[in-house]
């Protein structure tokens, strides 16, 4: 493998990994903030417990997003120096603003939230969480503005061979970003919904299995209590409320991703027609959406692909909103791309050994085709499962089946899979460009960059391979650690996040934390810290 291939694998692996942590951070952060708000307003103990429990899992995951995020920012300069030189004038700004306006907010206020349970008044403490969560939403916005510029460059002029920002408003309100941001946020909420649903299901099942909750003759649950710390009736309420919140969040966010995804698709048919043709593995112009295509999907010659099941009109609907407009297939687009952007990479030293090679305009079709379908499939499956879960728990608890419980827990993975597949699809589908040309006929269409020109010329394949191995190894080890910690804390239940429950099983509002009615007395000099490392 040469330097370019290794650098691409590294970027792909580190980004997909980072984006396992990020959606859970964003989604769960929002959910915990809402739950704590409910506790603040109602004072019901189960909502404090939910805040503490889900907040603990949120933090275990949050730190991994922080740790792996630094790699992302450094990587542009380290491995993609030509890219950084080319786009720096316009691409650096959203990254700098992300750090200045979002990361600072997120990390500072989260620190206040974690350590400030006693030092801050309840309302201020809650506000800190909201500010941190809003910070994470802003951070998503800025990074998607940066990414969207790579998908659809706007607001620049070419000066001395480099795009120079001339219209910041256009960059920060890029229509590609405006639809990608809500799509990403709904995707993050879908992850959180599935997470709540699966884990709450496990605990409700556990309570039944341990004989704490029983089911009456009418099928309705009879919540019970056991002589185990934290296993009281309030604990039942924690899990049933979590399950229902999770299921509702999962369904709403799937609807949200579908709506925003449809808008995105329509934009993408205009902005990156080849990506969408490759998502369909569609060679010829047509109107039909392929439900299943077989043959050699990855073949360079896309006439090897046969659409087995095709729904006429749907592709046109996805692209244009009607059922009849012909959507261009790979073959006709290929001629157009060759005419517009050349058939061979220019004889320029920045292409290294690849100078003069023929340009492969069709992305790897098995990735785009299946990535697109996995995104939709996993997302839809999770939403369907959430609907079934709501129905199955209508009488107040989950079925006693161990298999169903396992399915619910494994189902946590589905929205993660949808997120990863979506990103892999959209990034791989942009190839061979790192900055895709904007086909808008306003003269901006010469702003593009081939991925082959983006890698650092001064960095050797050996260095890149070293970092690929090191980072992948470190990430693998940390994934095992994170998942084991999460499992441990999930199994431990609420008491794992609220050890005070083990001492005083009832009335924890009075005991450990100042109540929401403002009876707290911040900063009592002889107290031990409310939270400490």
């Amino acid at each position, binding site marked *: 493998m040469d330097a370019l291939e290794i650098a691409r694998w590294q970027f792909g692996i580190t980004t997909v990994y980072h984006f396992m942590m990020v959606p859970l951070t964003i989604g769960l952060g929002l959910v915990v903030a809402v739950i704590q708000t409910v506790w603040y307003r109602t004072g019901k103990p189960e909502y404090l417990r939910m805040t503490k429990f889900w907040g603990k899992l949120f933090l275990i995951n949050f730190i991994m997003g922080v740790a792996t995020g630094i790699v992302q920012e450094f990587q542009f300069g380290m491995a993609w120096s030509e890219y950084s030189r080319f786009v720096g004038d316009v691409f650096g700004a959203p990254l700098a603003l992300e750090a*200045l*306006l979002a990361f600072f907010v997120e990390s500072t206020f989260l620190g206040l939230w974690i350590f400030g349970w006693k030092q801050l008044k309840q309302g201020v403490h809650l506000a800190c969480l909201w500010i941190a969560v809003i910070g994470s939403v802003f951070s998503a916005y800025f990074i998607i503005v940066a990414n969207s510029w790579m998908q659809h460059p706007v607001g620049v002029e070419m000066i001395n061979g480099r795009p120079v920002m001339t219209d910041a408003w256009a960059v920060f309100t890029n229509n590609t970003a405006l639809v990608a941001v809500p799509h990403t946020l709904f995707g993050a909420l879908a992850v959180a919904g599935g997470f709540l649903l699966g884990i709450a299901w496990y605990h409700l099942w556990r309570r039944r299995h341990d004989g704490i909750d029983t089911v009456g003759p009418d099928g309705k649950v009879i919540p019970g209590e056991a002589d185990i710390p*934290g296993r009281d009736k309030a604990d039942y309420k924690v899990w049933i409320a979590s399950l229902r919140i999770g299921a509702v969040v999962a369904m709403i966010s799937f609807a949200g991703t579908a709506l925003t995804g449809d808008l995105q698709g329509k934009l993408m048919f205009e902005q990156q027609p080849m990506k969408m043709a490759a998502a369909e593995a569609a060679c010829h112009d047509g109107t039909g959406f392929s439900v299943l295509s077989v043959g050699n999907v990855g073949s360079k010659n896309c006439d090897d692909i046969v659409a087995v099941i095709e729904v006429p009109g749907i592709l046109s609907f996805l692209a244009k909103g009607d059922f009849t407009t012909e959507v261009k297939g790979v073959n006709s687009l290929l001629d157009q791309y060759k005419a517009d952007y050349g058939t061979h990479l220019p004889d320029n030293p920045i292409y290294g050994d690849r100078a003069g090679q023929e340009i492969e305009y069709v992305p790897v079709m098995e990735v785009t085709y299946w990535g697109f379908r996995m995104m939709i499939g996993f997302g839809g499956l999770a939403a369907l499962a959430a609907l079934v879960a709501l129905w199955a728990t209508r009488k107040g608890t989950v079925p006693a089946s161990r298999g169903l419980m396992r399915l619910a827990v494994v189902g946590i993975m589905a929205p993660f899979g949808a997120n990863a597949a979506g990103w892999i699809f959209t990034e791989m589908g942009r190839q061979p460009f790192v900055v895709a040309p904007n086909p808008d006929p306003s003269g901006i269409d010469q702003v593009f960059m081939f991925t082959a020109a983006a890698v650092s010329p001064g*960095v050797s394949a050996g260095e890149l391979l070293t*970092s690929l191995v090191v980072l992948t190894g*470190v990430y693998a080890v*940390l994934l095992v650690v994170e998942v084991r910690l999460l499992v441990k804390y999930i*199994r431990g239940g609420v008491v794992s996040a609220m050890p005070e429950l*083990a001492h005083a099983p009832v009335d924890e509002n009075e005991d450990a934390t100042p109540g929401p009615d403002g009876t707290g007395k911040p900063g009592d000099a002889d107290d031990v810290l409310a939270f400490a490392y």
Partner: protein
Amino acid sequence: MELLPTIWFIAIAVLWTGYLFLEGFDLGVGMLMKLFARNNTERRVLLNTIGPVWDGNEVWLLTAGGATFAAFPLWYASLFSALYLPLLLVLVALIFRAVAFEYRGKVDTDRWRAVWDWAIAAGSLVAAFGVGAALALTTTGLPLNANGDREGGPFAWFSGYAVLGGFAVVCFSLLHALAFLALKTDGDVRHRARRWFVRLLPVLVLPIAGWAISVQLLSGEAWTMAAVAAAVVAAAFAWHFGRNGLEGRAFLSLGVFLLLGSASIFGAAFPVVLPSTINADFNLTISNASSSDYTLGLMTIVACVGLPLVLAYQAWTYWVFRRRVSAAHIPEAHSFLPAIAARALAPKD
């Protein structure tokens, strides 16, 4: 001379100084986990002095990096790609360190804590050394060709300056952490930290002084040399205050020392942001490495609003957690697992 690139050169110098001032002490506290703390309680005292703030401090690094990318893309591209392997080490160190803070207390066994204590100490050491080396090299030069790419292989960056800069930031961080602990803790840790601070100060300021003086020899000007002299005076004041038990003033004097030292270094390097040791014609300067005035203007406006806000709410954080931490404040480690999980794991029926 261009106004906006100059402003951004200063802004980036300020961001790096802010980073060294804030993360300086938490990197140092990390190293002191192994060098200074005697038992688990003391280690937890150390950790909790920086617990609420270290993550916010680390964002200064991200902001410095991001601002360099946005304001001087050619500087960012050349520096980060030339220092590929050392920055990889910094990244790995920061990853382990961050995770260690959060995970250390999550399992109640000595072995678990020992692993993460090492991750914190070694991670802090490597990160401080790597950042110091990178900063020293951007002021003293790298073997860059006309395109700004490194010549001479993966280790061509290595030089005495790299080692000096690495030691400079490591030693400063240790010293700064001792001053910080004297200010933020109580009891035995506080007194020992102050004692160590007074004893070690004369030695620990040497590498950073060496770096500052080297840069003066390469490209110093009258005012930057005066700044070095003033920094030495500030260090003397820090020592004096430390000896007399004025912990707040000692800490602030050390901050002034950093500010002056950093001004003398960045000031002497200006207007070159990254010299080429191959040919001075290949030097990256504030003129040939910067973004357009439009981008810099936009960033200036945002920074004028954003940076004061950041300073305000970070200062508020320090105010909220202003209480000194001592062994008495540390809650006992809890072992919650048996309650439910033991039952859950036991076979039913």
